[in-house]
């Protein structure tokens, strides 16, 4: 089972990803959380992939981490 497929089955994990997303504002997060249980497994996998890839640290954050 691939990571997105696994992520698609883990609704709780997806919820955490949505809640932690820095790109989304609170209103958008709320709507995603409401529809999350009703998404198809395919769309959940896409959502999981987008959020995981979107949470990759930016070059600035990477540089800051390196300087620590």
């Amino acid at each position, binding site marked *: 089972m691939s990571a997105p497929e696994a992520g698609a089955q883990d609704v709780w994990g997806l919820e955490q990803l949505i809640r932690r997303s820095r*790109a989304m504002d609170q*209103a*958008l997060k709320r709507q*995603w959380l409401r529809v999350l249980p*009703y*998404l198809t497994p395919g*769309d959940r996998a896409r959502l999981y992939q987008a959020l995981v890839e*979107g949470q990759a640290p*930016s070059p600035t954050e990477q540089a800051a981490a390196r300087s620590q």
Partner: protein
Amino acid sequence: MSRRERRLRQRQERGRTRARAGVVPARPAGGPAQDVEERALLARLLDIAHDASTYLRFSPNAAVRVSSALLLAASLAACSEGEPSEAPSGEAVVQPLSQEVRSGLPTKPGKYPVDRESVSRDDKGVYRFAYSEPGQQEKKRASISLLRFLSANEDTLEVPEQGDPILRLQKETPVWLTAADADHTTVIYRTGMPGVSPWYPFFYISNPFPRPVYYDPPQRAGLRSGEPVRDSVVSNTAKPAAQRTLGAPGAVSGRAGGTGSGTAVSGRTGTLGGKSASVSSPKSSGFSGGSGGSSAGASS
């Protein structure tokens, strides 16, 4: 390390810890520009939201149907946030004319009476007015982008043998500043009408130019706020179309009621009648009329 540096470092460390723990709040709406990655993520989320809404809107659960619609709306709003608006200063940026306008004018040289209530100039610099042929009651409408002005005791249009037509206007005859897409055929402009302002080209000029020259309203915000505009930018030759639009940034500026002088395209300034106005000559011809004087002239 100073106390201030230590405090700053502690604050940075707290921020990093919060970020690692995932408790950093989302950026507020209208905050700093989102970076490229965030915008890309929001675009992907919009794509998913769009696909999800195609099947969720048929859900038997009304709450799900509503939620999917709200999700789509919120996703669209998030994607459009931070996009540059068309009018950064609240006024639409006007595209200049691609070619000069000249229509409805008399074909024969001569002088034609002009309806003083009908003279207007739009954001693109196109003048419109109604005139009548000698001995005829019927009003004809003309549109023209290259028009010279002359202060006179009458409101007439002069079509010379050569050169751009001349509008002879009385000092108190308004030229109505209007939007480019306004209805110019049926509307009669009046003070207080939204989106239009009367412009009096010669108001602050105690000694108007004795020969026809090109007049432009000053470039500043809120020109069509309804307040009368009483200052002008004068030039011997017609400015390029891009410098005749109202609302285009960086073209010409002039100030009414200020203490200093306005700034013209050429950078040459003059003060007319105690108020500011600019005299410019795009082809760098002669200029006279220094600051503080009550008269100014432009020589070609």
